[in-house]
Each structure stands twice: as C-alpha cells, then as structure tokens.
C-alpha cells in the first residue's frame, strides 16, 4: 500500500531523498514529466492543452531529529528538526541515518526519580538515544553526527478506516496528489512535492516561483483536536468528518471567493467536508500565495490526531474525500465554473 510505504520512509527537512526517489519511481511508471529544483522540490506535470495551470502542493518532509553528538558510554545526543513536543519522545523507537540503525529514547527509571522529578517533563539534557553500543567508538561506527532520526513507527489499519502511522503530515497529501494525477484531470496540473516545510515553509515559495500556476491547492495534514481533555470549541478539525477547508492559519488568510466555490462544489457532489477552525500552525499556502504578484491559493487539510508525535491517526475516508474534492475542483475549472480568484 502506497501510503504505508511512503510514511515508513525516513525524511526530515533537508533529507527528503528517499521519499523523493520513491515518488519519482511511482510517477515515472505513469510517464509524467518530472523535474527537480536546486532545493529538492520535485515536480510532476500532467498536460491538458489550453487549460489553466493548477499546482497541487504537498510536502515530503516530516518532523524528526538530528544526531548532535555522543557520550563516552556510546549514547547519542540529539536535537529536534521541526516542531516536536519533547514530552512525547521518551520510551519510543527511532531509526538513525540512511541505514535505519535502531535506537531508543531512554529515560531515568521511575524507581530512581524523586517525587518532584516525576511532575516535570524530561528536559532535553536528560534525553538520549541508545543504540545498544557500549562505547563512543562503537556508536560512531554505526552512526554519524548530522544523521537524521525518525520515529520507527509502522503504518497499519487499527480499525476499518483508521490508520496509525507517522508522517501522515504530509505524505498523505503526497499520495493524494499521485492519485489525482493518475486520474488524468481535464486541466494542466503540476504536482509539487515540496521540501523543508516543517522548518519554516522553506521549499514551497521556490516551487511556486518555478511553476507560476493560475491556482494553487495545498494538500496538508493538520491537527485534529477531537480528543478528551480538549474543549470542543478548540477542535481545529474532527477526524472522520471529511477534508478540512482552511479559513486561516498563522501564515495564510484564505481567499473567500475560492472557498465559497469549493464549498458549493462539495455540497453539490455530496462530498463531506469541514472548515479548519483554528488559527494555529502554518502551511505551504503561506508562502505560495505571496509569490510574485500573489497566487490564488486554497488550503485543504486532512485531520490527523496526535500529529507531530511518534504515531498519529488518519481516517482514510477523509483522504478519499480530499481526492474527490480536488478532482471535482479540477473538473469545475475545466468547465469554466471556477473563479480563478484574480477578480476580487
């Protein structure tokens, strides 16, 4: 299964190589014209003569860590790459480097902790990775400073429609683009698989400058807060209620004309959707809509529970809904119904 293979690959910001190679292989099978830019963004083009050009963007990178150094005992010190709550990394398995060396994030046993220690999260200084090496030398033989570290999570269904795994943010978007491209939509489409989103939306602006589309649609993974202990009015999205249409986030205020048409289309086609209701986070849309004189941009997100943690949940009905919604938008553009957003 494509989403399983893709999410199990390691690929922190700046180390998207394995993800890119995997996607390249799958896209080449379908004979798409492919190119890569200097930052590592990859483009797959589908042509439909005399139609507008739509860029579909998803990022290939995931949150993870980097090897920073060693202790004489052979333990590794590390630092996060992207936004990770360090409280979720203790007691988890990770893979280090291209060879995927097994490591675990250890911590002081509860028996040896004083009572006041137990109430505080582990600090970065207390966390280390154990690769079973008994000396610094042995550890250096298997890993090196700067190696990427990703969670060693397997992707699997845990119920009929819900999958658990890492990096659904945003490999789920990447697989949606692949699916949409394969359906040979009736307009020009450039699938942009971007880099370095998790460290400040760094690839997408370059990608948009290269593509210069008439419209951009960003396909993302976003936080679903529909879990206990969070108040309902703070739910950003709810898992299982369809793809979420972004109203705003820290990087982007959505074009209301575009969103209005997207909602009309979803309702007409009976595609379940929801509105992304919080202003937190940023996506590639934040860069893309400001490129050159401004690019009309739509933000769509898949609700993921426990995003940016070792294991998150994704409902595959939401994913299918996103594919259907984008397919519907592309058809509407070809039929001339869609406002391309240049006339406010």
């Amino acid at each position: 299964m494509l989403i399983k293979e893709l999410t199990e690959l390691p690929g922190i910001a700046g180390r998207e190589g394995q993800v890119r190679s995997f996607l390249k292989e799958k896209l080449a099978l379908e004979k798409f014209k492919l190119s890569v830019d200097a930052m590592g963004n990859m483009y797959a083009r589908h042509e439909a003569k005399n139609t507008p050009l739509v860029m579909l963007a998803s990022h290939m990178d995931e949150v993870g860590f980097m090897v920073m150094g060693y202790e004489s005992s052979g333990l590794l010190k590390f630092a996060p790459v992207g936004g990770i709550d360090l409280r979720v990394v203790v007691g988890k398995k990770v893979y280090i480097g291209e060879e995927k060396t097994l490591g675990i994030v250890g911590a002081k046993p509860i028996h040896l902790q004083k009572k006041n220690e137990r109430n505080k999260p582990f600090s970065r200084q207390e966390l280390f990775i154990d690769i079973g090496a008994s000396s610094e030398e042995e550890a250096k033989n298997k890993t090196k400073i700067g190696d990427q570290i990703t969670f060693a999570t397997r992707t699997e269904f845990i119920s009929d429609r819900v999958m658990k795994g890492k990096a659904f943010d945003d490999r789920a978007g990447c697989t949606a683009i692949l699916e949409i491209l394969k359906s040979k939509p009736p307009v020009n489409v450039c699938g942009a698989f971007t880099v370095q989103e998790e460290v400040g939306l760094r690839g997408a602006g370059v990608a948009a400058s290269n593509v210069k589309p008439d419209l951009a649609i960003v396909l993302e993974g976003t936080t679903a807060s529909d879990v206990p202990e969070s108040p309902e009015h703070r739910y950003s999205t709810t898992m299982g209620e369809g793809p979420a249409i972004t109203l705003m986030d820290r990087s982007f205020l959505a074009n209301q004309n575009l969103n209005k048409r997207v909602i009309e289309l979803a309702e007409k086609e009976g595609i379940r959707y929801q509105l992304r209701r919080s202003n937190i986070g940023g996506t590639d849309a934040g860069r893309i809509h400001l490129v050159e004189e401004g690019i009309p941009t739509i933000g769509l997100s898949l609700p993921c529970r426990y995003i940016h943690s070792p294991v998150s949940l994704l409902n595959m009905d939401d994913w299918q809904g996103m594919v259907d919604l984008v397919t519907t938008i592309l058809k509407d553009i070809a039929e001339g119904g869609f406002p391309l957003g240049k006339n406010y």
Partner: protein
Amino acid sequence: MDLKKFIATLSNTPGISGLEREVTKHIVKAWEELADEVEVDTLGNVIAWKKGKDNSKPPIMVAAHQDEIGFLVNEIDKEGFVRLEPIGGIDPRLLPGQEVIIWGKEKVHGIIGAKPPHLQKPEEREKAIPLDKIFVDCGMEKEPLAKKIRVGDPITFNQELQWFNENVCTGKSLDDRAGVAALHQALLDLKDITPGFDVAFVATVQEEVGVRGAIASSFKLNPALGIAVDVGFAQRPGQEKEQSIEANKGPALGIGPHVHPDLFARLQKIAGENDIPTQLEPSPHPGGTDAYAIQMSRCGVATALLSIPLANMHSPLEVIDIRDVRRTGKLIAKFCQEADAELVEGLTCL
C-alpha cells in the same frame, strides 16, 4: 528452546500481573523439555523440578517473576476513548505516543493520546501529563469498540523484541522475563547434570503488585534456601552511580538485609572459580523482589539475590545484554550442581 528464542517469545507475550496465563503456557512448554517435572500452583506460579542426588532435604528454590506491568481498561467513554488503570509502577510521562494492545474478545490496537500540546496552557506544558489526563484511542466509536473490549480487559505495550546487535536487545517486560530466561539457561546447563539437591525453578506471578506469587510458592516449597533472580538498574546518565550496575559485567550479587551473607559468599566464590564476571549491588532497603517474600516464608529462609543489568526499567523499551542472562544462568547451574548438605547446614550455624 534456544535462549534468544525463549527470551523473545516471553517478551512478546502479554502477561500483566494476575493475568500471566499466556506467558505461563510458553514457560511450561519450554521447561517440560528440560525439567523432570513441571507443575503450576493455585496462583499460577510455574514450578519446574530438577531432581538432585540428595532427595532427603527440602529443595533449592530459584525464582524469577513472569508478570509485567501494564494496565486494565478502566472506562470506555461515550466517544470511545479508553481510560487506563495501571497495574504496577509506570511513569505516565512515557505514555503519550505509545502503542498498546487491548486484549479483549478480539485483539484491539490503540495508541495512547493526550491533549494536543498547542491547546495546553504554558503552565500545563511545564508539567508532566498525569495518568488521569491520558487515554487510549482505538480509532473507533464506542459502539463497535464495546463489542470487542470491556472494562477490566488487560492492556500491554505493543512492542516486539528487537536486537541492536548480537548481544543487546530491547523489548517490553524484560523485567523480569530476562530473569525467567536466566532460569531457562540454568535448566539448559543442567540438562545432563544431576544437581546436589532437588532444585525448584519457579516462574512466579504477581511480583509487580507486591511479590505475591513468591509468598505462596515459597510456602509450598518450604525451601532449604532461595535465590531470587531479578533485574537491576543499568548505568545511564542522570542516575547515581551507587544506585546503578553496569551492562555486560555479569549478574550483580545483592548485599543487604534480605541476602544471607554465606549464600552471597558462596555465589561469589563459585563465580570466581568458573570465571563468571559478577558485580555488587548494595541494597540497603529489602524489598521489590521475590527475595523479600522468600526470606520471610514460614520459619525463615536463607536467601540470595542476583540482578541482571537492565536499562529503562518499567518502560516499553527495556534493554538487556544477553551475555548477562547467560552468565546468570551459568552461575545458578554451577551453584545447584555444587550444593551439598554442608552448605545447607552451615546457613543456620551460629
């Protein structure tokens, strides 16, 4: 069964305190091939007998516990989220982002969640998330979920034992399945050897909730002497050196109120004679292992404690070096082989 296979099988099997049955089955099956007789007592302790040259005396009891820490389903809320009741001492800070299995009518996979960090107030982020704010998400609504699981079903960490290299592995419940594996190694070593005395190898139950299996099994056996095999804290940063032992330095011989000095000396001597590396583990406060229960059984039993170095104790990713397990097994086997009446009688000498 080969030691590595045995330890992986045991580690991968669910068996929280009081619900050790699946683990028990594997142990019985493996030990039936090695021991003269295997029985399971009322509480579920596995007792494997190795008959000795001298059957006139009570047996040597060698014990390691087969239970593991975990949880029970405490509640399935109206949205289908599962609340946890801990069995044994678990650090709640390890829990968010952990994968678990709920052993209901069907095996249900879940992941442990908590309130998303961006919804937490700054002061909440400075605090560890307490257990009552943590839940299991099975990706299911209450109705279908309640058909598969119910309140009271056991929950274990979803971890398969993995090897870092040929010697070092990580997995759940190595506390104290590594100890049970050391007993297995001793049985392997004694395969064609008749020990000095009858030896009862006991895989005890319910250690993590108060050494309960050892209480019943040592009463039944009324042993001449007892050796408990458990795990000790392998040295890691942030731990005081004197509270830690070192991996790949052999079993640690406990010294303290719950260890008989003569047994300690005997084990140290046998280790020296057989080139088995050992280290010392001073334990000023008796407790936390089966030795505690065995010592106070009936009219009192001379007891020793062997600890296998283990890192990340009571986490889903405990780490051991198999060489330490092998050495522990070898030391037990040699001890049993050389045990004689003189030793036993000497234990109660003034």
